[in-house]
Structure formats: C-alpha cells, structure tokens
C-alpha cells in the first residue's frame, strides 16, 4: 500500500520516471483483485449468512414436523421462525447489494427489474401447482410437505441456471444445478425428512460456494 502510494506520488510529479514492468504487473494484478473484491456480490460473508439462515429456517420446520404420522404440517411457531430467517437473509442481501453497487450505474438499469420476472414466475408457479395438486386429490403430505420444500428449489434453480448460463457465470450455474439436485433428491426423504435433508444439503452447497469464492480470490 505504502509502496503504491509512493509510486503514485512520484509519477504524478514526474511521469517520465521509470516504472519497472515487474512492479507494473504486480500493481495490475493487485488492483484488479482488490476491485473484484469490492464489487463482489454476493460476498463470502453473505454466502455464509445465507447458509446459516437456510439451515435454521429449514431446520425449524423439520423439528416441528419430524415424527408426525400422518403428516399434518409445520407448527405456526416454526413458520414464524422460517419467515424471520428469510427476512434476515433478505435484509443481508439488500445491504450487500447496496455496498457492492454503490456508485455503479448500469447501462440497462431502466429494465433491470425485468430480470426478476422469471424468478418470481417460477416461484409462484410452485404454489399454483400445489393448489392444482390438492384440487386433484393428492395427499396433504405431498402437497404441503414435499412440494413447498423441494418445488421452489427445482423451479427457481432452473430459472437461475438459465440466467447464469446466459451470463456465462459458471460459479452461479454450478450452484443452481446443485440446488436442483438437492430439491429433486431430497423428495425421496418423505414429507418430514425433505425439510431436514434440504436444509442440511443447501447449507453444505452454500458453504462449498463460499470456499470456492475464497479459493478464487487467492488464485
């Protein structure tokens, strides 16, 4: 840092001064890495907060439904806990997005909200499908157990995977495909077990994502 500041002061005063190519290469890499870290979204911390919030939210539901026979759904307290953790994670996402994008103006900012359309449509479709399944006579355990735990992961994961592939964001694509796999695989655990398996698996996927982010920073 001290070295960079000294170099700036020297060259501002006298631009004809020698600037060693090795020092230039180091400065270029350091600056890029530092800028990437400052614009990074989500940050490693946010990914870990999301992992903790998901584990707590899905864990609360699992604790309230485990051992139910027949399945009667989560308790009101577990649902309140779920919404509290979702709210905490949403606030953290909002604050982090504000930090990363402070001072950055996007070319297509007027139409940026349209990016949310596929995600909202995919999310809402799960609840429409739940209504249709209940209407068609499917059991309470499938409609209110397996569907709300696994459904959003599969459809929102698919929407995210399409978005990530279009932007060539391979890290996000890997995360989205992992979320789809968690959603589809956890359904085998039944209406109560699906909540526990989904919570633990999603937490593990997010922790892996945080590790990849740290590794990319150091590479």
């Amino acid at each position, binding site marked *: 840092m001290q070295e*960079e*500041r000294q*170099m*700036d002061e020297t*060259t*501002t005063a006298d*631009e004809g001064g*020698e*600037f*060693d*190519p*090795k020092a*230039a*290469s180091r*400065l*270029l890499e350091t*600056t*890029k890495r*530092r*800028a*990437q870290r*400052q*614009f990074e979204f989500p940050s490693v911390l946010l990914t870990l907060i999301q992992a903790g919030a998901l584990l707590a939210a899905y864990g609360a539901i699992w604790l309230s439904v485990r051992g139910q026979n027949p399945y009667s759904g989560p308790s009101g307290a577990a649902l309140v806990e779920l919404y509290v953790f979702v709210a905490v994670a949403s606030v953290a996402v909002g604050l982090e997005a504000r930090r990363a994008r*402070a*001072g*950055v*103006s*996007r*070319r*297509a900012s007027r139409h940026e909200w349209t990016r949310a359309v596929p995600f909202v449509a995919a999310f809402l479709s799960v609840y429409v499908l739940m209504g249709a399944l209940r209407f068609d006579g499917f059991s309470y355990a499938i409609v209110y157990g397996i569907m709300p735990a696994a459904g959003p992961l599969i459809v929102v994961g698919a929407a995210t995977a399409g978005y990530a592939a279009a932007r060539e964001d391979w890290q996000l694509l890997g995360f989205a495909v992992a979320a789809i796999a968690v959603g589809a695989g956890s359904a085998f655990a039944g209406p109560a077990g699906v909540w526990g398996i989904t919570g633990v698996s999603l937490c593990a996927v997010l922790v892996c994502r945080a590790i990849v982010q740290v590794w990319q920073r150091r590479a």
Partner: protein
Amino acid sequence: MTGAATATDALDPLIHVPARLRIVATLAVLPDGDALSFTRLQNMIGLTPGNLITHLRKLEEAGYLKTEKTGNGVASRTSVALSNRGRKALDSYTAALRDLLAGL
C-alpha cells in the same frame, strides 16, 4: 537510452503510469457499459480529487474513458466508464507486459 527503457517502449505510455494503470484496471473489472461514480473511484484509488481529474482527463483525451455528468450544482454527479478503445488498450498493454516479462 538503456535496454530497460527500450523494452518499456512497447508499453502504452498512457497506461504505463501507476495511477492511470490503477484507474484503468479498476474500471476494467466492471462489466462493459457500466460506469463508476467519481467519488467511489476516488475512494478506491486513493488519489486526491485534483490528481484524479488530471489523470482522467488524459485518459479521456486518448478516448480510453467516457465521462458523463448528470444533474446540476450540489446534486451533480460525474461517472466514468472505460470505452471499448480503453478496454482494448488495456488488453494490449497486459499482453505486451506479459511478453516483456517472459523475455526477462
């Protein structure tokens, strides 16, 4: 002229200055077309406003940057974006730097 000076002749003199290299490298991290406010750029680079303006002006004159001022008076805001020409210049500079270091 020394050997080292001859070798560095291959490097774009507009970018081969620490402060300007940091400006261009920082802006290059943003996606194409995105702009950064003068205030945040200054915070990230750590130069005085006067120094930063001087360097930005040189880069803008070369067509490496585009600056845009919006609003009036105290509400005015200046944003800076790397142009396509600036992005290509940084790519060429990076390639030249790599060649130069490989030959050392």
